[in-house]
């Protein structure tokens, strides 16, 4: 046991004196967590919490523009901008501002829109009151092109943002359409009823009957009659709303943990190249002790990484204006996720250090493979946003298992039971990587000695 701890202690001292290794293991993930979280927290807010500034150019100046403007203002999520530098904005300037990326959206109400819209609505109501007009081949008004509200977007804008804006506008237009239709319906229906009554009564018709036809007032309270309430599906325990902190802190922690493959693999290669491994293997110790010492040392490093990065999420990021990291309701599950992820990362480092022939190979391939596995694993973009094929490939990334388990605990209120399959995958990955490394080392002749 003393020998084992001697190896662990040696690894920790060596790493403590390895400045670039410390930068990779601690400074890089900490910087990534802070920067990416703050950046994404802002994106998160731009979608749901903070107001989006939208250019609004109304060249019509009538009811449609006013309705749209008022409705968007009422939504609370949009700030209407009609002036730039104190001057009313024209459509060409507005389009240029969007193209430059100064604004993401411009809504244009062209001249004559209200008249065209009202005409279309009136004809639409008329058509509905004379449903057989089309059947009889009578040309009806409103069959021409629909009036259009052009909406200009910044070309770099994401599809989901554009879809959200269009959906919102369609809802506004639908409200206006219903209002207009009901107004015209109220206006036309009594006349239509009178016409029908006259037809039915024939010579019996008297103008006194008109009094019996009710005046229509088809307006109604604008309050919705059915509500939608946003709710998160969660296990029992603490309810945590997903946000940039809950996503990014575990994601980049995992990324940092897997970056131990670079110093760990590198240390194995240096030992082999410097003759250290040969010397160690002539000493009264086993390869298993040498490797176990390395694994424990790097698992300890991973634990320190987790504590540091989580502390940043819990303490530092809230000071910068973000919500604090919530740790979920199952500390035991969290510890299991951390340990199984740390072992998986260590196993990969051992494999890399055994197979790679030079430090450059290990550091290059190790770093690139971790970045790819992180991208596939949902560290950079959540897995559910990936195309189907990438989601299927993602299922093979150890970082996906680790991140899914972390999110289970931190967001979905999961416990040991809910993360056990991901933790098992990580442990199996550890066993496979270390076994392959062992097999490769034995095949190569323990220390890679070639004929001299």
């Amino acid at each position, binding site marked *: 046991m003393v020998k084992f701890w001697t190896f662990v202690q040696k690894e920790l001292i060596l790493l403590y004196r390895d400045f670039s290794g410390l930068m990779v293991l601690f400074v890089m993930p900490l910087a990534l967590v802070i920067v990416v979280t703050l950046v994404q927290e802002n994106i998160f807010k731009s979608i749901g919490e903070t107001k989006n500034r939208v250019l609004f150019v109304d060249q019509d100046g009538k009811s449609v523009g006013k309705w749209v403007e008022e409705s968007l203002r009422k939504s609370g999520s949009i700030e209407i901008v009609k002036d730039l530098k104190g001057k009313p904005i024209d459509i060409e300037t507005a389009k240029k501002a969007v193209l430059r990326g100064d604004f993401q959206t411009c809504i244009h109400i062209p001249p004559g829109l209200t008249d065209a819209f009202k005409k279309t609505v009136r004809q639409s109501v008329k058509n509905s009151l004379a449903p057989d007009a089309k059947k009889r081949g009578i040309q009806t008004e409103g069959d021409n092109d629909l009036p259009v509200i052009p909406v200009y977007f910044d070309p770099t804008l994401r599809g989901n943002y554009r879809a959200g804006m269009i959906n919102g506008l369609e809802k506004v237009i639908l409200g206006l359409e219903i209002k207009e239709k009901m107004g015209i319906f109220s206006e036309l229906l009594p006349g239509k009823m009178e016409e029908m009554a006259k037809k039915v009564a024939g010579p019996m018709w008297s103008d006194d009957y008109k009094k019996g036809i009710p005046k229509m007032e088809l307006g109604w309270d604008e309050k919705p009659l059915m509500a939608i309430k946003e709710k998160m599906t969660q296990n029992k325990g603490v309810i945590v709303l997903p946000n940039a902190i809950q996503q990014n802190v575990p994601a980049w922690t995992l990324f940092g943990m897997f970056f131990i493959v670079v110093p760990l693999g590198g240390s194995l290669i240096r030992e082999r190249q410097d003759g250290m491994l*040969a*010397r160690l293997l*002539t000493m009264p110790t086993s390869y298993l002790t040498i490797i176990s010492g390395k694994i424990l040392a790097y698992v300890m490093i991973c634990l320190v990484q987790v504590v540091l990065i989580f502390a940043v999420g819990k303490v530092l990021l809230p000071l910068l204006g973000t919500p604090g990291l919530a740790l979920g309701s199952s500390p035991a599950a969290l510890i299991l996720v951390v340990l199984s992820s740390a072992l998986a990362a260590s196993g990969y480092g051992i494999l890399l250090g055994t197979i790679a022939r030079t430090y450059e190979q290990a550091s290059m391939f190790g770093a690139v493979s971790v970045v790819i596995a992180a991208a596939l694993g949902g560290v950079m973009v959540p897995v559910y946003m990936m195309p189907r094929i990438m989601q299927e490939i993602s299922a093979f990334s150890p970082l996906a298992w680790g991140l899914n388990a972390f999110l289970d605990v931190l967001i979905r209120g999961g416990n040991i039971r809910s993360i056990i399959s991901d933790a098992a995958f990580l442990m199996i990955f550890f066993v496979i990587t270390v076994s392959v490394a062992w097999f490769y080392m034995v095949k190569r002749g*323990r220390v890679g*000695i070639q004929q001299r």
Partner: protein
Amino acid sequence: MVSDLIMLSAHRLVKVYPKKSQPAINGLTLSITEGEVFGLLGPNGAGKTTAISIMTTLLKPTSGSLTVCGLDVLRYPAQVRGLIGFVPQEVALYQNLTLRENLRFFGRIYGLRGKELATRISEFIELVGLEESADSLVYTFSGGMKRRANLAAGILHKPKVLFLDEPTVGVDPQSRNLILERLTGFKEKITMVYTTHYMEEAESLCSYVAIMDAGQIIIEGAPAELIHRFPDCPDLEALFIKLTGKQLRD
């Protein structure tokens, strides 16, 4: 004083590396008695390092038998490792540890603890003349200092059999002189297997030498006796060239 006790015995050792048609060592048989300094000489590719690797348990031979201190190396490698010391060709030390930290690490692996370990570390730091640099990181050492430190790490636990694979290669004359002086001091106390390309070193240090070529011992005996056998060779180097040829071995 050299006794008759056999400390290392190799019998018909053969090693064929995978995908190689020629064996690296081919029927190596030798016997080393207690206190002897056995010089294993030969040109590049002769099989010296392979032989040392097998003797130090790093490699398994394809066939043959080997005992160290009476223990079968192939059956009891773990026990053998506690009895031997190894000073490899490379400076096999952790460059980012101090010399004292390196020696503490190696000492603990050899089972030394506490006061005994501390005393032993000081003793061997003094022996290799590195008292003033003991607490400096090894990467700051000169080549000669590293070689001396490398030697200290190999003998710290006072092994029964010490294997030295070209321990003075690329060393300044002063450091080389110190290393040879210290090794001479261990003569008759520690059995040594010594490989080198410096024939004058072998001639002065070794009590017995074997010259290898193509994986086999082509001649063996005490240096003086071998020179005596070949009157046209004034020294071991001339004999070595005579037996192994002048062609370059890369």
